[in-house]
């Protein structure tokens, strides 16, 4: 059996991202290690407390020669424009979570809105990554259903 253990997003500043994902989003730090032998590479991962087996790595776009200057610049711009990646989060009480996140300073670009599958909302992290937060109706909550139309 193969399961998902970690995914990764690019951030413009790991300290800012760490503060956002822990202090504001309420996640926990899983690993925060810097390696002198790797040119100071910092491996920072966070995750939701209720899901200890799933982590999100918050990495900065590496400088040349790891990433060519042009690629790094293009990727940074894409992240800032919200085009690089998305996280899809679920909530069992979206209104309460929305109020709590808003009180911590998170600005939603879509406040909780009713859709046929449940209530959905969205915001961006400080770097520009899109984060969706939804409370999905029970009848739609299982993704173990292949849908093809």
């Amino acid at each position, binding site marked *: 059996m193969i399961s998902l253990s970690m995914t990764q997003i690019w951030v413009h*500043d790991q300290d800012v991202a760490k503060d956002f994902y822990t202090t504001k989003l309420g996640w926990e730090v899983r690993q925060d290690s810097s390696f002198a032998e790797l040119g100071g590479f910092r491996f920072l991962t966070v995750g939701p407390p209720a899901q200890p087996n799933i982590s999100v790595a918050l990495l900065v776009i590496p400088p040349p020669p790891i990433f060519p200057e042009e690629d790094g610049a293009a990727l940074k711009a894409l992240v*800032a424009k919200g085009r690089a990646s998305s996280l899809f989060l679920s909530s069992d009480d979206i209104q309460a979570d929305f109020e709590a996140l808003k009180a911590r300073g998170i600005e939603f670009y879509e406040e909780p809105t009713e859709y046929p599958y449940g209530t959905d909302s969205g915001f961006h992290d400080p770097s520009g990554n899109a984060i969706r937060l939804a409370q999905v109706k029970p009848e739609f909550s299982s993704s173990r259903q292949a849908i093809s139309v």
Partner: protein
Amino acid sequence: MAYPEPERHLLRARDLADTRYAAPIDVTDMAAAAGLSRAHFTRSFTDAFGESPGAYLLTRRLERATALLRNTDYSVTQVCFEVGLSSVGSFTTSFKRIYGQTPTQYRAAYPPAATWAIVPSCLVQEHARRQNRTIREDSPASAG
């Protein structure tokens, strides 16, 4: 501390369009959200996203209108007002130019998306929005 790329400020302006499309906001409000002058903002936004802020705001409103047409029984007039537009005539003209059908024809042609697939709303919003490259940024009409 590293500062975010300049585009992050432009994303803030785009977020304003996505959040407040139902209110009578315009490009000047979007420029203020980005902290830029209107002229500089319009150029920067167009460079970053490949379409002008006025076009983005209009097409976001029209995309939201398509969702209301598919998922509610609101009248066309109600849909027009719900997405922040005040002229039903302009709404219908813009809608037909971009979607190739009047709002009424569109509603009749599409079954509610939710009846055939479960797709997160953000993806529906992204893909249901159409390009509009004919709007003039500096004309007063772009505000609507």
